[in-house]
């Protein structure tokens, strides 16, 4: 069986859900080993990685220098060793690390994949492109493959037999770099799943008029994250980290609710692959209705409170 390296996403000690999805995918391709960048993980994190099949947890401690892509890439390259496949979660940062890994090792690379399999000794990936209007299958011709996977594209399932999850420290010589980190200003981590990982996303656009009370309330009720259009973040109504779209976060939740969002192509590009799409908009001509499974032409100020009342009634029943 091939060794399949998985780069772990973690916030402090918390292993992010997409990592468990990536490990689940890795098990279909070979024997997973996890790569942990940062201070050595606590026992809980290690055992969770084992539950999802990791045979080893290779730990690379780089300190703050690890924020420089080429330093992180050197760590990853050392930890991957001769594993033929590396899986990362498709984030902007990981795309940079993985590109440098591929340059170093000659690997072929696909990002934003929704799945991967062996076909005739080569990795093939599945993707949706052009705002989820096309399905594409790509073959990686090189001996080694790097696959960036999108969150919410594989259902995370624990392994039948736990992986050994033996912790293996990996030593790396930090390469000389040209970049100097002048400052790092940590950002508050919001409660609940981050936008990119949430199973439900409720987004508000210009149609909210800047008041996110109803959008947040519905997101809370559905256990989801709050999203926004760029017009809303540009107005300063809500932080940029909430922006859904081609230049913001790409989301593929099971349910996406668009409130007061017209559905510009830039926005659709970041959410069109969602499972079920629901839209509330007063304009019957809004393009969002072209891709909504269920649309309500109406004022979100009327529609959302009524919908929430009905959902609460249902939950209480």
């Amino acid at each position, binding site marked *: 069986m091939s060794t399949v390296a998985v780069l772990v996403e973690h*916030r402090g000690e918390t292993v992010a859900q997409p990592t468990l999805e990536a490990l689940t995918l890795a098990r279909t391709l070979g024997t997973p080993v996890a790569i942990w960048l940062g201070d050595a993980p606590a026992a809980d994190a290690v055992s969770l990685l084992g539950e999802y099949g990791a045979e080893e947890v290779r730990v690379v401690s780089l300190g703050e220098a690890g*924020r*420089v892509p080429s330093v992180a890439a050197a760590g990853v390259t050392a930890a991957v060793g001769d594993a033929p496949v590396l899986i990362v979660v498709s984030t*902007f*940062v990981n*795309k*940079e690390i993985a*590109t440098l890994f*591929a340059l170093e090792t000659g*690997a*072929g690379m*696909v*990002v934003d994949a929704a799945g991967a399999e062996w076909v005739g000794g080569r990795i*093939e990936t599945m993707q949706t492109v*052009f705002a989820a*209007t*096309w*399905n*594409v*299958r*790509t*073959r990686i*011709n*090189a001996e080694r493959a790097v696959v960036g996977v999108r969150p919410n594209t594989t259902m995370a399932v624990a392994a039948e037999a736990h992986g050994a999850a033996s912790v293996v420290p990996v030593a790396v010589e930090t390469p000389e770099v*040209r*970049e*100097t*980190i*002048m*400052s790092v*200003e*940590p*950002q508050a*981590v919001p409660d609940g799943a*981050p936008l990119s990982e949430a199973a439900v996303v409720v987004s508000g656009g210009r149609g909210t008029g800047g008041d996110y009370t109803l959008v947040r309330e519905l997101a809370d009720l*559905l256990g989801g994250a709050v999203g926004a259009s760029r017009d809303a973040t540009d107005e300063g109504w809500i932080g940029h*980290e909430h922006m859904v779209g*081609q*230049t913001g976060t790409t989301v593929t939740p099971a349910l996406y609710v668009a409130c007061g969002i017209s559905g510009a192509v*830039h926005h659709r590009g970041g959410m069109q692959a969602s499972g079920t*799409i*629901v839209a*509330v908009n007063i304009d019957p001509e809004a393009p969002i*209705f072209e*891709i*909504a*499974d*269920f*649309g*309500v*032409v*109406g004022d979100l100020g009327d*529609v959302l*409170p*009524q*919908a929430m009342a*009905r*959902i609460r009634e*249902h*939950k209480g029943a």
Partner: protein
Amino acid sequence: MRIVVTVKFVPDLQSTRSFTEGTVTRTADDGTMNELDENAVEAALQIKESLPEGECEVFALTMGGADATAAVRKALQLGVDHAVHVNDDAVAGSDVFGTATVLAAAVAKIGEETPVDLVITGMAALDGLTSMLPTALAHKLGFAQLTLASALTVADDAATIERHLPDAHDTVSAKLPALVSVTDEANKPRYPNFKLIMAARSKPIATYSLADLGIDPASVGALAARTTVVDASPRPPRENRVTVTDKGEGGVALADFLIERGLV
């Protein structure tokens, strides 16, 4: 100071985009300069305008088929000084590594007499959205990599950027030469004015072939690509879509839909 801005020719977002034989369909009719490269052009022009007249030259660089000229022409309309188009049949089907090899050689050629201090790229091309090229190009050039900049300043022979990552906002600095990729937060691109549009019509566009760049055609293009699209098909539209008009019960209808689908 010499700045190169990379601009990519991509299908217009508003057009119906498709695949032909495993590559993105690109035609002059519905193709254009990648929108996010407008931010890269703007960043370069702002640096130029902050320097005394004549101290900074901005080059726009594209790699692609004959139609890709439209991308550098657009950059000229926005106000760059020079345009370079790497146009060679052998580059068709290049993956990111092939593209980076070609663009790096073109940057080196542009820098033959006066070295290039800064390369500015967009954060992503809105066709594939891979965001891989800037990293690969910085690596091939041996330049410092300052990617995903939501702010950029150049002073004292160094570039400094702000990089907004999910967990923290970083400030990163490097001595020139450097490659910077800018996000759409970095600035607000200008519109071309009439005078520049007229002037761009007659501005020459330098064309390089792979031979001009000393690149073996077999090392780039579809044959050297480490990935091949083996199948591409349009996704079926969503079926059974329903739109209701709220006449006082729209919220209930929405809730019932979610309940029915088991999403609540």
